[in-house]
């Protein structure tokens, strides 16, 4: 008994010794806290900052410093021993409080607290902060909602990415055969933080994911296997894909079967395989039937048919045949013989794309009946004499997009509703000039992205990027008749992004005010890694947009050597 007690005492002493010699645990540690937790600026914007000092004894000396936009901010003591201060934040923005503590026989860390002070009249805008680490770090991305407050810079402080866990496994058939596939994986609750990968020829995938449930979209390379959506958790080691359900139907134009049409469904966001209609208009695609899901039906008729692309979305039932009908009133016209000219001169061997959005071009019936809309996109080339060859196109209010040269486009109406126009007169590129202005005298080196919309977008025209001169002036030529969304941005972060929609060469104003910018800053790191995260792509993205608008950055940067980043986002303004 005595021997056991002695052993216990020895163990306790050893434990104590371990704590005493615990290195960093013994160091003086300084921390700061402040109230209110969400301070607002103004004469009443009083903030109290309190120091906490651990692992030291005796009389401590506190040296405080408060700065704002590089200047000192006056403060008063808020504690008899000087361990707390109080200051008034008259203006919104980020205030930096620094404290040095002198302790007897101890060295204390210098502690800094950055305090975001909001403008009480500031408007609020939610945006997404998307961070992608350098690929060699193999860390999952993040895509978080953050709130930008009008009139005030905002420091996010530490933005910490999780290192994730290795997720390896196999995409296979029920028979155990590995399946090469594309995989799109998104964590629940953070849908924008997508990780993509491919399983190899043996079906093996190896990726790093956050240790939380994910949605996984698997699109097998094989056209005989249906894409499928799965759930993933850390214990998941395989995804079993199948041929899915055979979904059948027919495509007709009036009573005439449409053969050679490509048919694809998207059921609850998951695409089916691609089917092609047979001579009798029948098709089969393979997919996963999900009761009650929204089903999007897309049909691309063969170019020779002249029929437009057809789309319809509804809660279609895919357990029975799907009847896809191009309206019998939808007519096609032969555009052959139309001349393509510019300034009277025939344009030989030029690419011409006839495009146009068309409504009520048919319907889809599968349990329910949905109206179908669509668009025409007929691509052809003039012959050597500048004449369109024989080709069918839908009847309707179309536009012709003529590529005169690679960078020389023309857009003109080509209305085939009643008859085929005899002439496409391609106007010359039209010059335009505009200017981006801001609070500084001249916004040199700002950027203007011209994003094609309407006919140009349907024709697949690219986004044009222009850089301003030293006065913020832009001057160029764009397709006459073309419409663009103009996205002004300042790579130097002096002003926020401004988007002006539906601009033509003649509708640009002489100048546009770029909104003031507020900065969103932070420091990137990875949990468990003492190094800061440098070289990561940091973007601010639209939270409420859809399609490409959801992917186009409002602001973008890369973290620096210290893991720091600063983004200039449009100031939401104040009330």
């Amino acid at each position: 008994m005595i021997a056991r007690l002695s052993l216990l005492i020895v163990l306790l002493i050893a434990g104590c010794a371990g704590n005493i010699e615990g290195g960093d645990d013994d160091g003086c540690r300084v921390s700061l806290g402040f109230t209110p937790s969400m301070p607002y600026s103004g004469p009443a914007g009083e903030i109290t900052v309190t120091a906490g000092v651990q692992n030291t004894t005796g009389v401590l000396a506190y040296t405080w410093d408060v700065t704002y936009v590089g200047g000192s901010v006056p403060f008063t003591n808020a504690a008899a021993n000087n361990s707390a201060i109080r200051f008034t934040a008259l203006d919104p923005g980020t205030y930096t409080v620094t404290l040095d503590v002198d302790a007897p026989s101890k060295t204390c860390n210098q502690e800094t607290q950055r305090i975001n002070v909001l403008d009480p009249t500031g408007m609020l805008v939610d945006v997404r902060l998307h961070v992608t680490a350098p690929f060699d770090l193999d860390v999952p991305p993040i895509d978080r909602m953050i709130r930008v407050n009008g009139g005030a810079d905002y420091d996010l402080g530490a933005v910490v990415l999780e290192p994730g866990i290795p997720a390896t496994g196999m995409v296979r058939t029920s028979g155990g055969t590995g399946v090469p596939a594309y995989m799109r994986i998104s964590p629940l609750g953070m849908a924008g933080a997508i990780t993509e990968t491919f399983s190899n020829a043996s079906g093996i995938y190896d990726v790093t994911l956050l240790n939380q449930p994910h949605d996984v979209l698997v699109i097998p390379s094989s056209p005989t296997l249906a894409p499928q959506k799965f759930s993933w958790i850390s214990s998941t080691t395989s995804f079993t894909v199948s041929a899915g359900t055979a979904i059948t139907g027919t495509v007709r134009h009036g009573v005439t079967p449409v053969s050679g049409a490509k048919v694809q469904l998207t059921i609850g966001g998951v695409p089916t395989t691609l089917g092609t209609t047979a001579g009798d208009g029948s098709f089969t695609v393979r997919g996963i039937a999900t009761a009650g899901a929204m089903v999007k039906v897309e049909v691309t008729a063969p170019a020779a048919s002249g029929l437009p692309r057809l789309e319809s979305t509804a809660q279609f039932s895919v357990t029975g045949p799907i009847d896809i009908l191009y309206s019998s009133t939808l007519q096609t016209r032969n555009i052959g013989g139309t001349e393509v000219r510019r300034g009277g001169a025939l344009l030989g061997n030029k690419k011409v794309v006839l495009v146009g959005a068309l409504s009520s071009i048919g319907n889809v019936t599968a349990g329910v009946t949905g109206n179908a809309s669509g668009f025409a996109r007929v691509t052809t080339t003039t012959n050597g004499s500048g004449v369109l060859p024989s080709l069918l196109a839908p009847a309707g209010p179309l536009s012709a997009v003529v590529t005169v040269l690679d960078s020389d486009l023309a857009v003109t109406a080509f209305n085939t509703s009643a008859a085929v126009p005899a002439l496409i007169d391609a106007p010359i590129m039209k010059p335009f000039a505009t200017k981006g202005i801001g609070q500084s005298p001249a916004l040199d080196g700002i950027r203007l992205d011209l994003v094609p919309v309407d006919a140009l977008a349907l024709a697949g025209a690219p986004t044009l990027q222009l850089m301003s001169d030293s006065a913020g002036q832009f001057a160029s030529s764009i397709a006459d008749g073309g419409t663009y969304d103009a996205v002004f941005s300042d790579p130097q972060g002096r002003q926020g992004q401004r988007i002006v929609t539906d601009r033509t060469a003649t509708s640009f104003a002489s100048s546009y005010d770029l909104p003031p910018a507020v900065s969103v800053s932070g420091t990137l790191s990875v949990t468990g890694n003492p190094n800061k995260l440098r070289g990561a792509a940091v973007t601010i993205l639209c939270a409420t947009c859809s399609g490409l608008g959801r992917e186009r950055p409002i602001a973008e940067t890369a973290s620096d050597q210290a893991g720091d980043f600063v983004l200039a986002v449009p100031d939401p303004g104040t009330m």
Partner: protein
Amino acid sequence: MPGCFYSDPINQRPSVTILGEPTEAVHRADHLTLAAAAEDPDGHYVRFQWRAYACAGAIIAEGCDQYPFADGLLETFDFDVPIRLRDDVTPVTLLRVVLQAKDELGATARPEEELLLPVVNRAPTLVLDRSSRYSFIKDSPINVYAKVGDVDDGPAALMPLVWEVFGPATGNTSNALADLTILQDAEDPAHLQYGKVFTANVEGEWTIRVTAMDPLDGIVTVDTMITVSPGTPPCLAQVQPIVPPVGALLPLTDPTLFQVPVVVDDLDVYPPQVGDAFLGTTDFKWYVMAPGQSSHVEVAGATGNSYAIDPASYTPGDLLEVRVEIFDRDPDLLTNCVATDATCAVNTSTPSCIQRQTWRVEVR
């Protein structure tokens, strides 16, 4: 009767010698320590009197100050060699140290001991350093710093520094340096710092030579060699969406923005870096090989870091290739790659640094 004759003993003079004469040249502002060795035949205690005079003569004690700049009564004599005579203008070129000795009865050593020490000028000190934010590549600014001091005359008395540039045969040495204003170190008043911005127009070995000279023609010359490199090609650091492995296709189900979020380069990065006017932005070129095409066609006007593709612009089942190539201000032609190469690295010794990426896409 024998008489008694008494006489006081005759006190004899002590003799004295100066010890510790420097074996090396004495410079102005040096600290010297001399010692006295005395011998008194009567065994008396000997007192010393040291005096040191600053002179402007050559090797004889002419032109010395009337009054000593240092004196002492101890056996050892410590003093700092003055810079100038009492007129505060004439540089010291000679020291005259006089040592007198008396015994306790007042007998003075004769002759008094004198030491003449020629004093030479000390050359300035010069240290060079250089730094670059841009990895010492051609056409980029390289800061060269010179820190000069002069122990005896002080840094302010120095003549203007002479900067010379030596470079490769095709190097432009005459316009390679520009003035750079730098702050002085308030805690080190004994030195002054100067700077130049050096810009090399060609890569290779360059030498910056700086010469400092004091008012007495003391000269020091220091070289610093700078190896200027041609600069590295830009590297695609991140691309989106994922690039399919060989043999696989990226299914394109929705409008997709093909992007290059980050390019790493020594000068032309993406996203653009704010606050450094010398840094530029990467140039981008986008290409598409559409169905039916046999080569990648550059997309006119697509010069940004992203290129959008709407699958609706194609027919489901179409296969196409989307390609991006990046260039810095010194664009390397991707001549070591053929058009069918999905990726390309200009510098084959760093194959992970690629300037071309290709996505093979299947429209769904």
